[in-house]
């Protein structure tokens, strides 16, 4: 094992400050877009299909996601970069496999969360955003949700760093909280860009809130608060189960896992090298 390639990104590099600024700018773009959209949401959508809000949502969230990718991607070690395609493939394939069990959830972030657990929040955020961009080659409606996917990866990495994956009952709780935040951030995209959710189950929940007189954004946010936390709790649980099902030798070769003691149990007696 070439241990040098697996080290956590060394801080204090020459371009480190510029990258840190880009990261902050990306996060700020996403946060500012969300706040702007909520403050200026069109009071009466009957006047037109919220085209202005759609443009702001698309522009702001995509800019944030791209800034995060540009900041994070070049400093990721090669061993993490090669995991990103794996994560995307897992998102898709495991999502389909889960669909075959007949459970009523769209579980499409397992790979992102697994990479975040193994390689940290920066890798998780980059994986989430890149997943959306690459997956949009087959399904362009995924692209606007890149910022939400980056947030999921980042929060999963932070939860792993905080040791929430050391106890099996903390993982679903971390997923639940992540789902709340990610759902709230993604709701303006669903409301202003697509005008609703795809899928009849979620559509029925939104319809129920609309029938009570909520605005479209409020209805979709409430729907997201119902479905997303549950979905992410399941995703985090599956990712935790997978991380523990993998052999120690594999998981402990990731410096992030060793350094922050992400997983319970001792590291294998002598990590080679």
């Amino acid at each position, binding site marked *: *094992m*070439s241990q040098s*390639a697996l080290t956590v990104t060394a801080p204090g590099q020459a371009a480190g400050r510029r990258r840190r600024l880009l990261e902050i700018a990306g996060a700020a773009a996403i946060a500012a877009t969300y706040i702007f959209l909520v403050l*200026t949401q*069109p009071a*009466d959508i*009957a006047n*037109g*299909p919220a*085209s*202005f809000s*759609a*443009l702001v949502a*698309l522009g702001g969230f995509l800019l944030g996601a791209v800034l995060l990718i*540009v900041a994070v*991607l*070049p400093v990721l*070690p*090669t*061993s993490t*970069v*090669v*995991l*990103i*395609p*794996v994560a*995307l*493939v897992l998102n898709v*394939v495991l999502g389909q496999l*889960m669909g*075959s*069990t*007949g459970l009523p959830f769209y579980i499409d972030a397992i790979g992102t969360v*697994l990479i975040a657990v*193994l390689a940290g929040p920066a890798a998780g955020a980059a994986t989430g955003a*890149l997943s959306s961009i*690459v997956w*949009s080659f087959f*399904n*362009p*409606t995924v692209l606007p949700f890149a910022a939400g996917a980056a947030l999921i990866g980042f929060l999963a990495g932070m939860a792993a760093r905080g040791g929430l994956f050391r106890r099996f009952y903390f993982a679903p709780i971390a997923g639940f909280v992540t789902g709340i935040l990610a759902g709230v951030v993604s709701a303006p995209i669903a409301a202003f*860009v*697509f*005008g*609703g*959710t*795809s*899928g*009849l189950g979620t*559509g*029925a929940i*939104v319809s129920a809130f*609309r*029938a009570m007189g909520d605005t479209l954004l409020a209805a979709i946010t409430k729907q997201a608060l119902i479905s997303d936390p549950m979905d992410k709790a399941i995703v985090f649980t599956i990712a935790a*189960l*997978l991380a523990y*099902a*993998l*052999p120690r030798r*594999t998981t402990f070769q990731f410096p992030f896992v060793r350094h922050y003691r992400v997983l319970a149990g001792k590291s294998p007696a002598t990590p080679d090298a």
Partner: protein
Amino acid sequence: MKQRLHPFTALTAAASAAVVTTAAAYWPLSVAVALAAVFLAVRREVAGRVLPAAAVILTPLCLSLLVLHGLFFPEGQTVLAQWGPARVTAEGLGFALELGTRTTACVLAFLLFSFTVSVPDLVSALAGRRVPPQFGFVLASTLTLLPAVSVRLDRIRQAQETRGMVVRRGLVSRLGALRLQMVPLVLALIDDAGSRAQALDARGFGSPGPRTTYREVADPPAQRRFRAAALVFAAAAVAGRIVASWPAGVPS
């Protein structure tokens, strides 16, 4: 369209079409863009792949929009029919039509791009710009990994079945079978990634600096001018929309 388009030209065209359609918010234009995308798909002989892919994405979305806005639109004034809490309003149907056609146009434009672009061309075009080289790797690697994984998954399923895995009815049995397939797949992929990282590092993948590529993608000046014009047009459409509907409560 005899000559192959530069990947960026096709991408700019698709993105500009999507942005202008979104900014215009005028359903006849959305329909026109969607029809143009279908026409180009037929001419490039990818309609057989683009249209089913678009249908899978758009059918649930459009149905959901129709049910949601067609029946429940509290802002609507002109009531066409009413059953209890559900009211069919003209405004709601119009809203569903606007958003449905807009999304259809954008999805078709982007799918036309992704089903006609040559991925090697796109990756080498990206390498020529100031795009992090890792991005091109992730893109190309994912697109080649996806078909390989389904083959691999099939092999894992066969292997587990010869070892006695039987999928019965019931959630527990299904989840157990799922575990038997997921764990070997994830382990194999992560293990492969480790050895790929070493191979890539040995070839200088992680080292900084510009990259060169053997593949030359022709970029005629006419296409460059077209890209610039498309970007200016899209920017003008966005600016026009922002000026036209800047929210009243926000100081500009």
